[in-house]
């Protein structure tokens, strides 16, 4: 393949877009709208998951030990727990630390009457943080069966809600993204089919002259890819400014919800979104045009 042929077919692809302006524009606009919706939805899903993840990291299982347990056994239990894959962090809280924290959180100045006493004697424990709250039950079952463990406190409700939200959002996102993909493919395919119909005579001449399949077909595939690429790139700019604006407005107007509403930083979000959206746009353009060219352009 000569470079001049590549340049020629690329130019033909670009010219196709302009020869077929109305359809190209309609197709580009729809791909842009689809990518915009995809981007919004992607940002939403990623942020909900981000918030859930943040919330998950605060969910802990607390393990109390049998009375008179040796320090060595506590250490052993700690090592066993740390070795489990679902565990992200294990924190040892001594009875003194537990009491100090309780005093600060609940008693304040009334704690003075307990001078010298520790009502939480024997309450030393492990706070265990999980990297996936869905695995809390199996961890609790393990802990309850472990020798030396007196009691396991857990937060089932929180874990279940967070897991369910995650699953629901994932399913909804899959369905919506699927619909958007199908619509985009259909539109690209229509535009390319229209281009083939408009250039029927030129294609016939190319075939008679002896152009190879690649030379006849590739301008249409390039047209599809370019529409997909630009259709995906344009809304990314809009989403960027919109996202930054939403973070600012949410920070100002809903500051009370700042513990729940955790926004992923815009740079981090776009590090994921830019390649995903561009690959998606190019992929839709490529597939839509290849299928159409194969169907309508028998070389």
């Amino acid at each position, binding site marked *: 393949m*000569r470079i*001049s042929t590549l340049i*020629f077919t690329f130019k033909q692809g670009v010219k196709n877009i302009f020869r077929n302006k109305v359809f190209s524009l309609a197709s580009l606009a729809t791909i842009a709208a689809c990518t915009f919706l995809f981007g919004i939805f992607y940002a939403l899903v990623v942020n909900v998951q981000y918030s859930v993840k943040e919330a998950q990291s605060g969910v802990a299982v607390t393990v109390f030990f049998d009375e008179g347990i040796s320090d060595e056994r506590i250490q052993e239990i700690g090592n066993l727990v740390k070795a489990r894959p679902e565990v992200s962090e294990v924190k040892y809280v001594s009875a003194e630390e537990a009491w100090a924290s309780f005093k600060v959180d609940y008693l304040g100045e009334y704690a003075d009457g307990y001078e010298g006493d520790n009502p939480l004697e024997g309450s030393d424990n492990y706070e265990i943080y999980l990297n996936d709250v869905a695995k809390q039950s199996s961890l609790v079952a393990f802990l309850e069966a472990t020798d030396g463990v007196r009691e396991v406190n857990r937060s089932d409700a929180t874990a279940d809600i967070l897991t369910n939200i995650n699953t629901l959002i994932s399913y909804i996102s899959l369905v919506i993204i699927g619909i958007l993909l199908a619509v985009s493919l259909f539109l690209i395919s229509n535009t390319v089919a229209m281009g083939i119909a408009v250039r029927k005579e*030129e294609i016939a001449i190319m075939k008679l*002259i*002896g152009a190879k399949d690649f*030379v*006849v077909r590739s301008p249409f595939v390039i047209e599809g890819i370019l529409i997909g690429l630009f259709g995906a790139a344009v809304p990314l700019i809009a989403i960027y400014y919109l996202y930054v604006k939403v973070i600012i407005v949410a920070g100002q107007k809903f500051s009370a919800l700042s513990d729940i509403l955790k926004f992923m930083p815009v740079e981090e979000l776009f590090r994921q979104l830019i390649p995903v959206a561009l690959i998606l746009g190019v992929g839709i353009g490529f597939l839509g045009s290849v299928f159409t060219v194969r169907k309508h352009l028998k070389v």
Partner: protein
Amino acid sequence: MDMITLENVSKSYQTGVAALSDVTLHIQKGEFVFIVGDSGSGKSTLIKLLLRELTPTSGRVIVNNYDLSKLRRRKIAKFRRNIGVVFQDFRLLKDRNVYENVAFAQRVIEVPTRQIRKNVPAMLSLVGLASKYKAKPKQLSGGEQQRVALARALVNNPPILLADEPTGNLDPRNSWEIMKLLEEINKRGTTVLVVTHNREIVNAMRKRVVTVKKGVIISDEEKGEYIDED
């Protein structure tokens, strides 16, 4: 040496219509041949068989040593570079100028740009349109448009030129100019096949004339004349 050979070629369509029946024809390298016949006589089918747009129901078609019944699909493009084609309706690209129309034929078969810049002006000079290289087809007369089509058909230097009713849309003066050009091209070594209804030209040029009627060759004469089929 045969440039084109048809051996007992028959072609029937799925509708049951027999377009060609047991046709045998030999055309030598460098010949100038008129194919004449009424509408529906099988001329178009013959052209499509030579371009490998159709395959025969039976028999063999051999063009410049390519046996078309054995030709693989992916080899068709390369084979077609052996035949330059011009049509009655010129089939030029209306959105491109004369130069681009001729260069197009070279670009699609991947001729290097440097070579295209040499070949296209030379070909436009041959057909007498060097000064009009920037004109769009609609700015040209019918005769000039057919010259552009000829330049496009010849720029890749094919050994065979197939002209399907090349004077069908032209007045007598332009028709003669195109025929003179075809004769000139033939003198340079290209095998020329002209499918036509133009009795005056066929009779005046005194070339080989093959007459087809209802899918059968009814006459094949050196320095022949247009035969009235009635």
